[in-house]
């Protein structure tokens, strides 16, 4: 079991988000956003510029191969998507694949993308914010990567427990560590000053009815289960978590609606793979 002091110490050792990401997010948080100034800041970071260009050219945004400059990319993507892509890129940079011991980074991000796409499809079908749902879906499980990188040895014991009991990863974490990836993901997200909506999702998506009612939490809860049902990527275990009926009700969604959404999700997922390619 992890004691509170040890937990606090490890969390404080998780690096902050890159300075360029923080600067861009601060700029995007201003009431009046100056696009020219924003472009100048982004242009100083070749990695982020590349991510934005690649995203703008992905089939997901419908402009495959037609966006040639950062200026065009910013126009195509818009402020919401720029914020989401920059934030996600910064987080991916902070949780590098080569430092993972138990997770396969590619499979992990495939599950996350599957959840993001599912969340975006459900949000559109239920008239909610699909951009917010997409980003929250993409980042919902980052606590698992933080555990793998920063709590490495103890996470090995979690994996052993999961394999022995064929249970959910979160159950194994609770048993071995006394905390879960949801708790740790939320603590680090607070340190990274992520938007409240994302912190809520990371912390609550496993048990939406226990938290304050938040529609994006409900959406990501359902989306994560869909991504598992469609076997997109690897969420870290091979058991399906309990679907919360209250979440479905709050979304005015039925089990049959889920089945109807499967095809749309798979098509959109195939079109979106370039969003997570390196």
């Amino acid at each position: 079991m992890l004691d509170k002091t040890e937990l606090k110490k490890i969390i404080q050792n998780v690096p902050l988000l890159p300075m360029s990401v923080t600067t861009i997010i601060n700029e995007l948080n201003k009431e009046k956003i100056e696009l020219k100034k924003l472009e100048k800041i982004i242009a100083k970071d070749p990695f982020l510029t590349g991510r934005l260009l690649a995203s703008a050219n992905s089939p997901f945004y419908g402009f495959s191969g037609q966006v040639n400059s950062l200026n065009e990319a910013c126009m195509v993507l818009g402020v919401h998507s720029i914020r989401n892509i920059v934030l996600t890129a910064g987080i991916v940079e902070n949780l590098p694949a080569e430092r993972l011991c138990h997770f396969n980074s590619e499979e992990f991000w495939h599950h996350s993308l599957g959840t993001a796409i599912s969340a975006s499809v459900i949000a559109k079908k239920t008239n909610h914010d699909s951009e917010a749902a997409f980003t929250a879906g993409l980042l919902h499980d980052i606590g698992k990567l933080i555990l793998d990188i920063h709590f490495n040895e103890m996470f090995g014991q979690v994996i052993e427990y999961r394999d022995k009991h064929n249970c959910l990863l979160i159950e194994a974490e609770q048993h071995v560590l006394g905390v879960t990836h949801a708790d740790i993901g939320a603590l680090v997200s607070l340190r990274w000053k992520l938007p409240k909506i994302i912190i809520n999702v990371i912390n609550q998506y496993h048990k939406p009815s226990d938290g304050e009612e938040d529609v994006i939490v409900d959406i990501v809860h359902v989306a994560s289960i869909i991504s598992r049902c469609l076997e997109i990527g690897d969420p870290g275990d091979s058991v399906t978590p309990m679907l919360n009926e209250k979440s479905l009700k709050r979304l005015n969604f039925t089990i049959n609606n889920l089945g109807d959404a499967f095809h749309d999700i798979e098509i959109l997922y195939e079109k979106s793979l370039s969003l997570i390619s390196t």
Partner: protein
Amino acid sequence: MKEKLTITLAEVKLGDTIASDITDNIGNCIVSEGIVLDDKLLTGLLKRDIDNLEVFRNKQLSEEEKQNKIAELTSQVDSRFHNMKDVPIMQKLKKIVVQYRIQGIE
């Protein structure tokens, strides 16, 4: 069921999914992996000097292969829901998942 094929441009069918990035002769990506080929894209590709490309295409299975696949996937889905045998909503979800995935095989 999709299989990965390396084919010439003449063999490409609408609905094939690009399996790896298509680049021009100086290495610039002109079509990214994951894109589903439609009329417009195919017309664009035909104007370029492209030899082979990799695509994902639905595989035609024999009746026996189909039955084996269905049995395999049913057992896979069963194992993913093994802890939810007495939960009606999860059993309903399992049924929908199996039905959807069998459609994919057929």
